[in-house]
């Protein structure tokens, strides 16, 4: 077993072995040290970027730090952030879900329409909406894990199916918030902390981040999600029931999308079949900027929160600074490319 020399101080992952292909001078250089640190703490990069953005906009615009502006940023982020949790789970298994936005909108329409048109009590309508999202996720999960179709294709297909069902059921009509139960609008309500108003949807999002972070870190299921995404066959041979893990991940993601649908209703105070058109890509953007690897098995859900906040802060701050919207898109695109490039670099592990 090699000489098993103790790992160099600092990065615990500094290769302990003495295999022949080790990069020369890795133990010394600054670049290598950064590499090791980032490899160990994948969310460090996003955290720093977020910090820089916060500080930068505080300095350059005087309105950014205002309590009600920060509250607005959080509200703008709560939908994509929640979707991002679902997307993170799926990307951790080396998959991708193009249908998260469609599941979200379909669930929100079901909730709203049941409440507004069919007179179903608010709580029940909400639960049925959650059920619809869960079912959508289950369908994705069965196709990916049992039929073994590529996630990209599966969710591309279901994306269109869910959108069609959504337009059929909603008759392409928006449901006004005033017509539906207050329960469905609850996520948009706010409460005061000092002179800041925080939406309950934001609390819900943060709670879900904490819950999923716990599940991924501290339960066997979480370890299995990582192992499956890392190397499905190795995980299977090690005794992980990978099919079941994948199925559960897509199903849970479906439920999370439905919760995002509830938050969406609160956010826009209505349920619109046309809402959330960019939500799919925005959720992937948040995950990627948050340092989760598209190749699976690497990343933290908390990174996605940073990713979503970075995008939210960037758009808000640039808007306050009077920068044209197109440059906001430019900046987000630039960030995505940077994040993926850094991920590629980090993944170059010495073996």
């Amino acid at each position, binding site marked *: *077993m090699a000489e098993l*020399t103790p790992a160099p101080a600092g990065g*615990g992952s500094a290769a*302990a*072995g003495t295999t022949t292909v080790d990069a020369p001078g890795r133990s010394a250089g600054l670049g290598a040290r950064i590499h090791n640190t980032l490899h160990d703490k994948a969310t460090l990069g996003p955290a720093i970027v977020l910090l820089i953005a916060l500080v930068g906009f505080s300095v350059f615009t005087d309105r950014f730090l205002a309590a009600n502006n920060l509250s607005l940023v959080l509200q703008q982020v709560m939908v994509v952030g929640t979707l991002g949790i679902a997307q993170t789970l799926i990307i951790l298994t080396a998959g991708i879900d193009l249908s998260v936005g469609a599941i979200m909108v379909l669930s929100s329409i079901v909730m709203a329409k049941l409440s507004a048109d069919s007179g179903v009590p608010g709580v029940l309508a909400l639960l049925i909406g959650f059920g619809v999202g869960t079912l959508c996720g289950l369908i994705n999960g069965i196709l990916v894990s049992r039929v073994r179709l590529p996630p990209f294709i599966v969710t591309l297909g279901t994306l269109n199916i869910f959108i069609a069902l959504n337009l059929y059921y909603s008759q392409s009509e928006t449901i006004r918030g005033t017509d539906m139960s207050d329960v469905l609008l609850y996520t948009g309500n706010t409460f005061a902390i000092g002179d800041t108003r925080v939406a309950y949807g934001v609390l819900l999002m943060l709670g879900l981040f904490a819950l999923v972070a716990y599940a991924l870190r501290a339960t066997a299921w979480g370890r299995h999600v990582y192992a499956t995404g890392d190397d499905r066959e190795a*995980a299977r041979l*090690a*005794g992980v029931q990978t099919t079941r893990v994948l199925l559960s991940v897509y199903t849970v993601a479906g439920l999370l999308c439905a919760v995002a649908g509830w938050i969406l209703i609160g956010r826009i105070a209505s349920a619109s079949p046309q809402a959330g058109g960019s939500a799919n890509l925005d959720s992937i953007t948040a995950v990627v900027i948050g340092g989760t690897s598209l190749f699976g098995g690497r990343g933290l859900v908390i990174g996605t929160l940073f990713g979503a906040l970075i995008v939210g802060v960037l758009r808000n701050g640039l808007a306050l600074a009077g920068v044209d919207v197109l440059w906001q898109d430019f900046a987000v695109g630039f960030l995505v490319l940077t994040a993926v490039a850094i991920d590629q670099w980090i993944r170059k592990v010495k073996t």
Partner: protein
Amino acid sequence: MSAAAPQAPTVTPILEAKGLVKRFGNVTALDGADFELMPGEILGVIGDNGAGKSSLIKCLSGAQVPDEGTVRMNGEDVVIRTPLEARALGIETVYQTLAVSPALDIADNLYLGREIRKPGFQGKVLRRLDKKAMRAEAKHQMSDLGIMTIQKIEQQVESLSGGQRQGVAVARAAAFGSKVIILDEPTAALGVKESGKVLDLIQKVRQNGLPVILISHNMPHVFEVADRIHIQRLGRRATVVDPKERTPNEVVAIMTGAAPAT
């Protein structure tokens, strides 16, 4: 039955297979292969590429299901359809390339698929893992086998060298295998020194009373540790030989068909 087997045939083999057949479309990987593993031995399994070594082992470890044939453990018929079922029977396998999940740490890898949960509310309701116990136990296992001078049990496996990774995989098998340990080409990717350590490890595992199946291309390694050598040829068992009675050249001749299997 192989006459050359040193063990008396009156001992019940711990793991036994008869007439295994495995086809992949037109290719017949196993063509009525027999197999026997005696208690407490290291059985080397060798064979040319395509002789059916891997298929044979996969049928025993649950990675593949044979089309025909029977498998017995301690004289009783068993059916092994998945790696989990093999594991439940006490058969642990270390695969050549798929040994570990690189992004997880050593303890997570050791306990993958059989994690320890915290006692009481935290474990039962919150399903919280007992990382402390897992790490302590993992450390114990690793040092028990003399593998560990690794400082941090919580370091990611991908930061380990090839030999260390193999060590983690062997430790996992040794820690949980109650009946049989199967090692598929454990030294193939390793240097001389690392190979030596793995071979030591294999002997240590046997000293602990566990029989080991060692699949290898490396003739010197097989001759160094094996008590008997199963020679696989053309999808069947050609013969079983005693490494003390044969030279590597003779064995290679049988393996390639240059000499009759006697």
